[in-house]
């Protein structure tokens, strides 16, 4: 019995981390109509920056904060300097631009951090185990769950109760109308991009003690996040949440029952959903011609 709880919790924590990245992408997609293919690179950036600050100062939380802030700044630069000029171009081109940016960042990491495997240990404060139904469970995963849920709550609050959140929602629904009302949509778009990037950098930083990363390899986060988005519906944050949980749980329990092929699960799920309900579980049917 306790092993199921174990799997549930690990599935929950990894699912929620994917949600952070997927939510970031969802915000960017719904606001700017661009699927950010560089998201994986920013996630890795979060991990790397957190590692450097952690090594230098010994404080993990400082590392996380630094990762979020710097990534946000970088995201701001990317959107202002690179995406804005081609704002009017077809989304496909903007998508490919983000891909190009992703590639650039990837090699920049290689250059700046050298060719190595980056890993760190869990900070001492969080490094203990709690007794759950007889099995000791590492607290860090519970910490991750708590943090992710807090972020979800914050996002929900911002979107539903604040003015900025209302503007975001308006842009997602009908951008031109918002433009007509005198709000600077472009600036809002940049803000949305920054938020999206910061979220994924946060996920990357939090992931550091668990998985670390390798500077020469491409981030595997991107494809799982895309699978999550597709399952939930591109551009739907609620969908991203549900999709992330589904992917996390299925992978986790899949490892128990279908251990031979469990890494096929995310792509299988994605294809399945696309066949049954192409717009995603929470998506709306659009007339895309």
């Amino acid at each position, binding site marked *: 019995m306790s092993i199921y709880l*174990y799997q549930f919790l*690990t599935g929950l924590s990894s699912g929620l981390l994917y949600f952070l990245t997927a939510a970031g992408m969802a915000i960017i997609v719904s606001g700017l109509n661009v699927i950010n293919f560089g998201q994986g690179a920013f996630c890795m950036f979060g991990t790397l920056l957190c590692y450097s600050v952690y090594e230098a100062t010994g404080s993990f939380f400082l590392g996380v904060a630094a990762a979020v802030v710097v990534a946000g700044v970088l995201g701001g630069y990317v959107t202002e300097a690179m995406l804005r000029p081609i704002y009017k171009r077809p989304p496909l081109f903007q998508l490919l631009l983000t891909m190009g940016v992703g590639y650039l960042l990837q090699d920049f990491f290689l250059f700046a951090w050298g060719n*190595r495997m*980056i890993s760190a240990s869990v900070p001492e404060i969080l490094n203990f185990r709690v007794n759950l139904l007889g099995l*000791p469970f590492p607290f860090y995963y519970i910490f991750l769950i708590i943090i992710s849920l807090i972020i979800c709550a914050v996002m929900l609050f911002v979107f539903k109760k604040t003015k900025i959140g209302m503007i975001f929602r308006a842009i997602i629904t009908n951008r031109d109308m918002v433009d007509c009302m005198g709000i600077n949509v472009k600036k809002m778009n940049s803000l949305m991009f920054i938020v999206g990037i910061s979220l994924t950098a946060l996920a990357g930083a939090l992931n550091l*003690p668990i998985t*670390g990363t390798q500077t*020469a390899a491409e981030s595997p986060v991107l494809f799982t996040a895309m699978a999550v988005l597709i399952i939930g519906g591109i551009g739907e944050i609620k969908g991203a949440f549900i999709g992330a949980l589904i992917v996390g749980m299925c992978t986790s329990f899949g*490892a128990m029952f279908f*251990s031979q092929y469990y890494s096929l699960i995310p792509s299988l799920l994605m294809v399945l959903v696309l066949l049954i309900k192409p717009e995603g579980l929470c998506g709306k049917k659009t007339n895309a011609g």
Partner: protein
Amino acid sequence: MKKKLLALILTMAMCLGLAACSSSTQENTGSDDSGSTLTEELSETEPSEDGTYRIAVLMPLSGDLSFFSGYFIPSLEYLADNINSEGGINGHEVDLIYKDDQGDPTIEASVLAEVLEEDVCAVIGPFMDTCGPVVAQWAEQNKIPVFMCCALATDVGFENQSDYVFTAGSSAWSWAKVYANAVKEHGYESVFFLTNSGGVPENVKEFFWQEIDNLGVEVENAGEVQLSGTETDLTSVITSIMSSGADCIVTSLTASPAVNFLQQGNQMGLFDEVELLGAYLNDADHTESVGSSYPVGKVYSITWFPISFDFASDLAHDIYDRSDGVVPCSAGLTFYYALDTIRAALATLDYEAGYDSAQLVEAVETTTCESVFGDIYYTEYNHQLVFPLYLANTAMNDEWGMALPDESDYVEYGIECYPTEEEWVAEGERLGY
């Protein structure tokens, strides 16, 4: 119209660039290369004009696996420097030509085409077992001896067996024998197999269970998982292992997945109840990355360059001093001995003969080479380099500052862990070769 002109200029510039680049990367030593691409004509390469022994080295210098090469190059450079500073082999220096194959068989193919232009007398590498078959076939086709530093799956080994293919890396069979023996010695009751993609892990698993049968050991198969190599989050795998009741994990994981597994496993308390058997895992290239979360005392790993042991310490320190702060590891030693055995063989031949592949092959087969283990040599029936394997526990080593093989808890396996000629031939017949 301007755009069209630009396009035309670009295209022409490209073609010129192609031409320029291809002629500048060729260090043509004067031989007629149109001959070396045809398999019907020349069967040897021409000795180089400047009287050096040219040896190509294939390894992933870039790409996902490139951080490995950082560990290999210092050992090769150290040996090459030693050889050349003493005047070379019978007065001829050794010239190592590094080629980047990115661990990718498709790139390997084009890299090998380049190597043909370099007029080498031998090739060392590749490192990744996925590239093994391509290189082996190329060696047979072009009649250039190759010394592979990867492990070959046995059926692939049989299929690509030829006079020109030597294996300086270890064989899946040896590892399986070592693991099976360890399971017997340690008295494990239930084994979980953790593999990754590729033929070698599959091979290790099959031979392992075969050896368990041969030894008559009663052990339960607790299950297996195959990772695809791109997952970083192994927590679900770890939980399923913990719930399977296994007390021992045998794995073929290396590099990033292995580091992740060690870290996350330690986090989740996997190694409180389970011990790990693997290969390379207590070498510097892995333990350095895992750092202080290494589950010391719980990981028994096959290694052949335990730098923490007395007999290997001097060589380790020499290589370390030669490098840029890179701690040497077993895989690097494979490249080192590939070069050393070539040197030993070349030393018995005169310069021209060194470039005659048939003579070189015969020299390699009959020459023994001195090493820190004693004399090492290639078996005649399967061209496998025979050197001892050490299954060692891991302990924190203060001198090097990381977890390394524990000299107080290890077992040495010599020739008995390699397949005998009868076993090899029998297996070959079983597979239909």
